[in-house]
């Protein structure tokens, strides 16, 4: 039967376009050390390590966890390497949680990273294997048509995407770890930035970052021994579906909706908009905020943009979304999902600093990947039940 599990500590690197000051191991260790410090633990307290990252071609290292075993203190311990496309950071947190929930380990370290400056992500995403649909335009070119479909379906006004970008970048300026620090960004400046993949403008796109994130997850005994507040894992969900199939809805994917429904059920949440205090949602292109608000059940289909337009997703609104600055402010791809999960934990621990949502007790962490087909999420809260 499932044991209780909680986040005991959270750590992340300062995310930058090029972290030439550290190796891949140094980057991961920076995040792991901060998470251990936050939890008041040492590497020797850790029973198992879970490593997550997006495609190995992003660094040009095959299965880098083999080389990272020493830096992560995993020698002599179990080490698992997760890879579920863009959702991998979230999946890494969930696999680590399941090792505790299964009763196998007391304290597990989850580390997710990407050091994009080591290779070229655009190249890695553009290799055309035989008999497969080439995605030669990178991620932006792939997702732009789905955003256009959303705008047409919902009738959302064209400034919604720019509003999300302004909010997330200003939130990012409150977060010292965020890659982009743009406190002065305005709706006008976003709308004046170059069009990359219609309707996605330069300022509505995630950056390419070097960065890592780590969390320590422990069982109830470890949580109760903790001196600092912990974030209890109330519910977890993962769902996958193929990239393409007859009836696939790229705007409102069934896998995401079913994962969310399972998540809310498990957490005992009947009205997510009312019962969730803050949400960290994987938004690599600004328009994905209203799209995922609908997919997750915070708003009815076609209505998500109204929450954004009314300012309800700002800190202080009904449902603050991405107070950390989100993927739009930092995007070390493999770590981006775990950063969402970690920020959700930080918020309910009350340790989010200048981007803290006052009184946050229950939070969502969300990640997605592939062609809107892999979803992972968790709900954390300040109390175990």
């Amino acid at each position: 039967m499932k044991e209780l599990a909680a986040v005991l500590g959270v750590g992340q690197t300062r995310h930058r376009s090029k972290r030439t000051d550290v190796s891949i191991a140094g980057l991961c260790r920076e995040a792991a050390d901060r998470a251990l410090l936050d939890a008041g633990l040492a590497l020797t307290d850790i029973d198992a390590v879970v490593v997550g990252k997006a495609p190995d071609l992003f660094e040009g290292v095959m299965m880098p966890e083999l080389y990272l075993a020493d830096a992560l203190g995993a020698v002599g311990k179990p080490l698992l390497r997760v890879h579920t496309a863009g959702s991998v950071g979230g999946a890494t947190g969930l696999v680590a949680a399941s090792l505790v929930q299964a009763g196998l380990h007391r304290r597990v370290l989850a580390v997710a990273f990407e050091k994009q400056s080591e290779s070229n992500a655009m190249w890695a995403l553009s290799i055309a294997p035989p008999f497969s649909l080439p995605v030669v335009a990178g991620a932006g070119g792939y997702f732009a048509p789905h955003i256009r479909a959303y705008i047409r379906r919902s009738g959302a006004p064209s400034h919604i995407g720019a509003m999300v970008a302004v909010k997330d970048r200003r939130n990012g300026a409150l977060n010292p770890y965020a890659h982009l620090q743009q406190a002065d960004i305005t709706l006008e400046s976003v709308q004046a930035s170059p069009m990359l993949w219609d309707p996605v403008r330069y300022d509505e796109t995630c950056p390419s970052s070097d960065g890592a994130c780590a969390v320590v997850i422990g069982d109830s005994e470890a949580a109760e021994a903790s001196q600092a507040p912990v974030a209890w894992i109330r519910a977890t969900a993962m769902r996958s579906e193929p990239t393409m199939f007859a009836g696939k809805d790229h705007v409102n994917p069934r896998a995401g909706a079913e994962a969310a429904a399972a998540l809310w059920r498990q957490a005992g949440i009947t009205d997510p908009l009312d019962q969730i205090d803050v949400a960290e949602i994987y938004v690599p292109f600004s328009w994905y905020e209203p799209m995922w608000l609908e997919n997750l059940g915070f708003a009815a289909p076609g209505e998500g943009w109204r929450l954004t337009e009314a300012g309800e997703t700002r800190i202080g609104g009904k449902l603050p979304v991405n107070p950390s600055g989100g993927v739009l402010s930092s995007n070390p791809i493999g770590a981006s999902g775990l950063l969402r999960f970690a920020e959700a934990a930080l918020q309910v621990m009350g340790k989010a600093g200048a981007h803290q949502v006052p009184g946050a007790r229950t939070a969502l962490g969300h990640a997605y990947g592939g062609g809107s087909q892999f979803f992972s999420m968790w709900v954390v809260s300040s109390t175990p039940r």
Partner: protein
Amino acid sequence: MTEAAVVGFAQSPCGVREDATTSGVEMLVPIFAEVFGATGLTKADIGFWCSGSCDYLAGRAFSFVSAVDAIGAVPPAMESHVEMDGAWALYEAWVKILTGEAEIALAYGFGKSSGAELRRVLALQLDPYLLAPLWPDSVSVAALQARLGIEAGRWTEKDMAEVAARSRAAALANPRAQVSGEVAVSELLGRPYVAEPLRAHDCAPVGDGAAVVIIASAERARDLCARPAWITGFAHRIDSGSLGARDLLAVPSAAAAGRAAGADGVEVAPVEVAELHAPFTHQEILLREALGLGGGVTVNPSGGALCGNPMFAAGLARVGMAAQAIMSGQAGRALGHATSGPALQQNLACVMEGR
């Protein structure tokens, strides 16, 4: 603790598969049908799916994504992936059963090792700053390990050839093997070196393949299989990634994983059969010792990885073959072992028993 058992196993023929792409789909669809046929299950019965594969083998990013097509994941499935051998996917599936989130789980692994020069590709698993730029390929790294053992008096080239001859003879009974046959040790020793002291027979053949294992909770296992292979111990460990910092003649991660899984028979009854994932002959000798297997244990009745080593499926196939020995009634207790990384860096042990 919740118990789980292996209830089904299938593997594709090992070999260079001109008909199969790097997505794995062509190799997976037939073995999914085979394992579903044997257990009477359908995809709708699977509560959790987990796969093991590697982008570097496929030469592209996100290679596992197309494999999801082999599942037919509509409606959506609870699914995950490890960039590791499928044996670790089975471990994750086992964890899911223990949490109670799934009652039946399916793990699969696949790899098209023949797509490029495998020994060169595997060099990229080494330290990317200090070692990989020198391109020490996987066969050469294993040869260093074999040479150390010979110089330390742990084994001879003849001992190594005996492992190969025994494995190939055993593989005559395994229709999915890539290599098999009766061959004299003296004849093998007359053949040229590939990387001294390794000859071709000391190295696993390069081949493509896939494997699938289904596990179920105690409540479901007996309905699905007349004699389930109950998992009594399942553990894995990793050693240092720095070849210079490791004693290449000790495999502490295999010893620790074996001990944690009860493979050594110290605290529980010893295993009768062991399927060891040893891609090089001398590594079988090292693993027998590290895992504490006595002389009475039948090792690699399938022929082992030396007779078929589809990367990222071969470890899962070892666990599957060990389970098969129990499900068929041939063994009471069996060990399935998997390895990953240069020179046996990472090791997994799964001990199963029939009841």
